[in-house]
């Protein structure tokens, strides 16, 4: 998959829209988009693997939880994630992410501060799952 997300124009911040055949794939694409907004991921090797679990009451909350955890780990460990494998079953996910150090890496977009609930969508759309998320930058 080469085109994994579209940018949603926003005056102060930045948003993305993405899809996936499953909720897990759509969340993985949203995670890719979040880091691709900040760094050129074609230059980031998939080393430094991490695995974590998230649970939530609804798909939008699950999405916010996963993206929030990735942001937290990125900032505290100075790592840019570039590959994502998400496994989901009943609002419980296991996320495997991998990337490389952020130190010395040039930003191509402003750092994302947080994942907002504004205009948040994470829902089935036909046979796919569709996501829209606005990031605070």
């Amino acid at each position: 998959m080469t085109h994994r997300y579209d940018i949603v124009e926003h005056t102060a911040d930045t948003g993305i829209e993405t899809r996936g055949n499953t909720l897990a794939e759509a969340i993985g694409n949203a995670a890719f988009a979040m880091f691709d907004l900040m760094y050129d991921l074609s230059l980031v090797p998939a080393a430094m693997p991490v695995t974590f679990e998230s649970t939530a009451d609804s798909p939008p909350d699950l999405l916010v939880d996963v993206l929030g955890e990735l942001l937290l780990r990125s900032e505290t460990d100075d790592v840019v994630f570039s590959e994502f494998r998400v496994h989901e079953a009943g609002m419980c996910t296991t996320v495997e992410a991998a990337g490389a150090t952020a130190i010395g890496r040039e930003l191509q977009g402003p750092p994302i501060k947080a994942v907002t609930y504004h205009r948040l969508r994470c829902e089935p759309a036909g046979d796919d799952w569709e996501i829209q998320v606005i990031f605070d930058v």
Partner: protein
Amino acid sequence: MELERTSDYAWTVPRSGGMRVPGVVFASESLIVKAREDRAVDQVANVAHLPGIVGASYAMPDIHWGYGFPIGGVAATDVDDGGVISPGGVGFDICCGVRLLSSHLTGADFAKHAHRIMAELDARIPRGAGKGGIALRGLLDGVLEHGARAALDAGYGTERDLERCEERGTSAGGRPDLVSPEARQRGGGQLGSLGAGNHFLEVQVVDRIFDAGAAEAFGLRPGTLTVMIHCGSRGLGHQTCQDQLKLMGPAMARHGITVPDRQLACVPTVSREGQAYLGAMATAANFAWANRHILAHETREAFSAALRTAPADLGLGLVFDVAHNLAKLETHLVAGQPRNLCVHRKGATRAFGPGHADLPDDLRAVGQPVLVPGSMGTASWVLRGVAGNPAFASAAHGAGRLMSRSAAKRRASGRDVRRDLETAGIAIRPGSVRLLAEEAPYAYKDVDEVARVCEAAGLAARVARLRPIGVVKG
């Protein structure tokens, strides 16, 4: 969204649906155009749904589309009558704000030593994403408890810096125990850092004086140098807001509150959850006050090293430090009666008028300095609070974005923006050249018009215009 012009500089969003009060946008004809185009006015109407809101849902002249609240949004809720507190009315960058230093130096001094000054600032001011701060991680606990006072006790800045800081650099009611280990981990290595995006440190020259008496009281003289620092609570604040929002959704349901946008999640201010948010917010604010305090100290050190002069001889004194993302418990008159209000200012600056008890003694007769940063290629403004402010003592916080980040990047590259700034005589030290494109001067509204409208609408009065000559960007 319908807008009715009610005066030369005020536009009303009439009550409809679940709006408890009308919306009021302070703008001129030219400034209202963009607000109409994006979703900012819809957000003014959404904020008007908050339980306990009084007066109106206000928006300042730099209004633009945010998340939850519009940027430039002001909402006051009656604490004693079910009024809510909403983390969306503060934002993720809790207590983001602006600090201005004045000096004895002149534009000619800068021109003579520009390379050395900019090189020292470039080397000493941490910026960009992730870790990297001037202060040691061991200072964090003290800062969360005592704000800028803890930084002063550790050897940063001066006692006078605290006197010229909103809340004297320490927010009351902080609850460090409510700041999560994740937030501490995220912000722990960032104390004394700018961040990126629209945050900056700018060397400026006082370009024009509009109110000589107030300018003198603020220490601003024509042709002298100022330094403006714009940043907030970094990852500690961002994570604190994210943590609190997660708790706020279920709590809101327990209190039977519904809002038109999840980012407006709120609970009664007096509730257990509301008090917990206030405590966590105040703690994150303490990080922000200390962050700007430490950066100001390092700025003095940078100038001192560049000019080989003792910091005390540079006169880099604090004019004022203001927050523009914060909720505060304040007393205001509503229908002639004093009421305890929770005033949310999301991208708006507190602007107390002359005589207010919370102002420093030497500024009380003049009114509070209101700092309005512009874009890095145009100007910034110093205003002062005035009597009779119609929006719970609030004014603009900046120029306000005009253009999305994508649109700005399509117009020119970071290299082009850098070249244009240097051609205009502005020295620039970017953390990332590519990011300059999104922050180009044309991506922002006309800050001179924003300042003019603040004055015309009775929000604040113009004191001085500051022109940038050196910019350090994240």
